[in-house]
């Protein structure tokens, strides 16, 4: 049952979206979010819709996979829609009942808001779906590099992140083993009330914690014996190179952002 957990939700592929430098993609996601929030009306939303749809089709990620990602956030989406529906004034009144008033403007706002949030989620998911977690951590480390001057432990943070990712499968395997060992001695994880099941998990977590600490200790010794001494003077085997396509993608992102800003000024 634990094998089903896919973390980082990375779907390997060889499309242009996959091959872009992780730094480019990280920047583009930020630009994308900024553009989404400067969009105000049909035209700018239309542009953003085209951009989102274009990226999705280029990445060859199935639409179904992306919409699946929306599911856990459905409550927030609906709530935003409902709030916008009732709290926007202006336009023709469509419905006036008790304290609720629905106007044409409200319907439009609600619709645009829901579309905006959905595009926001899909756009960011596209990043994690098309970039391996390690590439993402590497990209983040380089992008945040200037913060090192402010004594932000950027290298340490990214090393911790990649270690955590590395040990997820190992820990899942271990959890499976402990569960089997406890089931063999009569532990019951699957039936009973929610509180019972939660209680049954406690004896699972304790050995898992203890062994994680032991692992961490051994890992630290192993890393030190392989000359790890922090990020100082470290080189990389795989260096990230910005290629022509990266600059083109960034330029395109800038154009889209500029367009939405101009449209924002004219209220389109």
């Amino acid at each position, binding site marked *: 049952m634990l094998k089903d957990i896919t973390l980082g939700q990375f779907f390997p592929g060889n499309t242009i979206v996959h091959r872009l430098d992780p730094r480019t993609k990280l920047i583009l996601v930020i630009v994308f979010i900024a553009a989404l929030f400067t969009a105000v009306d049909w035209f700018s939303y239309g542009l953003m819709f085209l951009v989102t749809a274009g990226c999705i089709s280029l990445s060859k990620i199935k639409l179904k996979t992306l919409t699946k990602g929306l599911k856990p956030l459905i409550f927030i989406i609906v709530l935003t829609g409902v709030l916008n529906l009732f709290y926007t004034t202006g336009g023709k009144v469509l419905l006036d009942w008790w304290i609720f008033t629905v106007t044409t403007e409200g319907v439009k706002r609600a619709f645009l808001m829901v579309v905006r949030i959905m595009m926001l989620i899909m756009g960011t998911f596209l990043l994690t779906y098309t970039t391996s*977690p*390690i590439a993402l951590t590497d990209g983040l480390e380089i992008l945040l590099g200037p913060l090192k001057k402010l004594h932000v432990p950027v290298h340490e943070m990214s090393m911790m992140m*990649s*270690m955590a*990712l*590395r040990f997820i*499968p*190992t820990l899942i*395997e271990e959890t499976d083993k402990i569960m089997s060992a406890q089931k063999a001695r009569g532990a019951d994880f699957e039936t009973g009330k929610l509180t019972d099941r939660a209680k049954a998990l406690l004896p699972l977590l304790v050995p898992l914690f203890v062994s994680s600490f032991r*692992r961490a200790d*051994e*890992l630290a*010794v*192993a*890393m*030190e*014996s*392989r*000359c*790890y*001494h922090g990020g100082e*003077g*470290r*080189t*990389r*085997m*795989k*260096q990230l190179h910005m290629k022509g396509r990266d600059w083109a993608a960034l330029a395109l992102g800038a154009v889209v952002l500029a367009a939405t800003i101009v449209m924002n000024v004219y209220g389109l």
Partner: protein
Amino acid sequence: MNLQDMQPIIRVEDLHYTYPGDEIETLHGLDLEIAEGSFVAVLGHNGSGKSTLAKLMNAILLPTSGRVYVDGIDTADEDRLLDVRRTVGMVFQNPDNQIVANVVEDDVAFAPENLGVPSAEIRKRVDDALRTVGMYEYRLHAPHLLSGGQKQRVAIAGVLAMQPRCVVLDEPTAMLDPVGRREVVATVTRLCRERGMTVVLITHHMSECVGADRLVVMSEGRIAADGTPREVFSQVELLRSEGLSVPATTELIYELRRDGYELPLGALSVGECAAAIMAAVKGA
């Protein structure tokens, strides 16, 4: 090549070690020299201090008293710590807890990356190290999907990429199945014989020591026996008193000798043993 003539790569002088917080000393004054290019097996049961000795050779632990020199560098010299560690690479017992990356080749690249080697050179070292241990085809695999023996070979490659002159393996086979065990022992034997690398193999499996140039038996924090495997294994009473078994061939010859047959105790391999018995039977 006469191994005795060369400068020892590791020199241990009157080494005492007590774990912090422990009352009892773990190592009681060891003296040991490891010749460059030799294959040394260190044998001992649990608690004999063999793993502690291994950790002292790599400056993971520092002597309570006495000295450990790696290529002439005192391991207690903090400024030379990286030099010590890049000269003596270390492979540990649990393969899972020493692999640091999600991809085999990234893991092998870890040590040279730490040492600040230029990236083209790292690439070369990684490919070379993976070929040496026979894991090149797996360079893009995820380590957690490999078998124990394969993981341990990746760990060895990770150390080789540092280009050390000596590899210390601390019970590398303890968590492996017999197939994995053979893979690892064959790999380190090849390293020593073909590349001239010094190998210190710490183990409690008798059978893994047979191919070594030298066998050191540890017991209760002391060296109980030291010599070629042939010499050491012929001291059957001593090994038994240390709670260690001897290879089945030696055991057989030892029992036959007790019954009055004239047989050489040095016959280690099955073939040698059979030949010795044949000769004795014909002679009789």
